[in-house]
């Protein structure tokens, strides 16, 4: 039995992106839920399974059910970091296909910018890393970037071009948080934090949230907006701590991408638009390689000189990504929501003409968890 095309996203909404003064993380989350249900034309009481993962509330699934006044048949709170939401969609598809649930809600929200001004996390440093004071999670990604540069000759300029492309997309997105012009020189001149990464290599610290609603494909067209079908999904978990990652240049995206594309029956060249969790510039290079959009070691040249910017050879992170659009701690759900916007043809100035097939990819921990979703329009079924 395959899950290909068995479930669809029928509602999606953003909430509180940027700065949501005076709102709690769960309040932002619930605003997103309200928006996604309205978008889907579904009443709250129809929701019979919920999924979330919030950084500080270990029992966030229970809090969510409580705040919605629901007694769900299933409450999913699986926590793998920012990739969780792309795993939630797979569990949702399983529950729907097995008829253990009929309407699944997946959501997230965080007020980290207005509440603390920095990443809010319940995580401490691992026992065997803490004595050396790596910045969490930045230094782990810096080590991966350093290794990629050593092994493949990836350059500082190529890393910068990832951030420049994200900004160029953000300038086409009125909802993006940072839309000022950004050049390669600006990125390279920005404040060094953990070599080789600089401030402009790092995702934003914003508030924000979002929600999606999933239903079985057979009823997915009974809603106001065109359904976006889940064609494939896959996961890869390679470690928890960066010191335990076998090869810092190869992530679990190789496995998650292979699984997801295998289920969907597609190859990288078929994908029209790509949404990757860009916590740091190096992520995009690693994931493009591991997902098969280019060969291992060639991610630097692939992203250079506008390769993934508007007008480049592959549109990546069309909302501006975590680098320029929104990054409230865990970004995964935003890859899904932007993919939905693109596949509905509802992405305004940044719309990719004729987008039928999208790849959304989430990262959790320190390159630890990788989860890929392949999404498509009705034409791809």
């Amino acid at each position: 039995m395959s899950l290909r095309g068995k479930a669809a996203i029928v509602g999606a909404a953003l909430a509180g992106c940027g700065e949501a003064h005076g709102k709690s993380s769960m309040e932002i989350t619930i605003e997103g839920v309200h928006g996604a249900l309205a978008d889907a034309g579904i009443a709250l009481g129809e929701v019979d399974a919920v999924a979330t993962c919030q950084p500080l509330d270990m029992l966030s699934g229970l809090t969510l059910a409580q705040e919605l006044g629901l007694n769900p048949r299933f409450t999913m709170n699986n926590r793998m970091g920012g990739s969780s939401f792309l795993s939630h969609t797979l569990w949702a598809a399983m529950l729907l296909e097995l008829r253990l649930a009929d309407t699944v809600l997946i959501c997230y929200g965080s007020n980290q910018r207005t509440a603390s001004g920095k990443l809010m996390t319940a995580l401490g440093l691992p026992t065997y890393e803490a004595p050396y004071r790596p910045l969490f999670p930045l230094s782990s990604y810096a080590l991966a970037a350093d290794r990629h540069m050593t092994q493949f000759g990836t350059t500082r300029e190529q890393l910068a071009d990832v951030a420049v492309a994200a900004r160029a997309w953000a300038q086409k997105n009125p909802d993006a948080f940072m839309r000022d012009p950004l050049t390669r020189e600006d990125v390279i001149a920005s404040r060094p934090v953990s070599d080789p990464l600089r401030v402009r290599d790092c995702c934003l610290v914003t508030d924000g949230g979002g929600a999606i609603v999933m239903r079985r494909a057979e009823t997915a067209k009974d809603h106001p907006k065109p359904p976006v079908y889940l064609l494939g999904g896959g996961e890869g978990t390679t470690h928890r701590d960066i010191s335990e990652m076998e090869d810092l240049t190869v992530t679990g995206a190789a496995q998650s991408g292979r699984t997801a594309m295998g289920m969907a029956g597609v190859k990288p060249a078929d994908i029209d638009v790509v949404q990757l969790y860009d916590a740091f510039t190096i992520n995009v290079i690693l994931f493009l390689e591991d997902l098969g959009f280019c060969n291992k070691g060639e991610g630097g040249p692939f992203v250079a000189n506008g390769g993934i910017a508007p007008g480049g050879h592959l549109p990546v992170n069309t909302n501006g990504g975590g680098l320029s659009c929104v990054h409230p701690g865990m970004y995964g759900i935003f890859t899904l929501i932007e993919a939905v916007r693109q596949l509905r043809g509802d992405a305004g100035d940044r719309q990719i003409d004729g987008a039928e097939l999208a790849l959304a990819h989430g990262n959790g921990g320190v390159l630890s968890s990788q989860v890929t979703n392949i999404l498509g329009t009705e034409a791809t079924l």
Partner: protein
Amino acid sequence: MAGIGQGPGPDAVFAAKLAEGVFEIQKCGSCGTHVFHPRVICPACGSADLKWVALTGRGTVYARTVVRRKPERGGDYNVVLVDLEEGVRMMSRIDGIAHDQIVAGLKVTASIGEGAEGDPAVIFRPEGEAN
């Protein structure tokens, strides 16, 4: 001898050895794999037959970062991943060399120094440098 169900767990054993000035890691009696960080069962084969063994202390830098910090807050420091000759990797710090001269491939030797809280921690120096 620690083992499943007997005595303290591997983390506590490692810490106690380090406090006595001894840097040892585990080696699997079943498949011969060296294991770090300390574990209850061998991640290569699942065996609980893990014994503490001495090391050559020699390693090679795999990757490095320099955390940039204002001088008044303590200044810059390096964080590295070192591959030990025995085939395991660990996070550490390289002392006795300018941060910018630390590159992947640098040969280093382990010693016991101080971690962030002044606790004993394994650190490295460039090979051939006196402690």
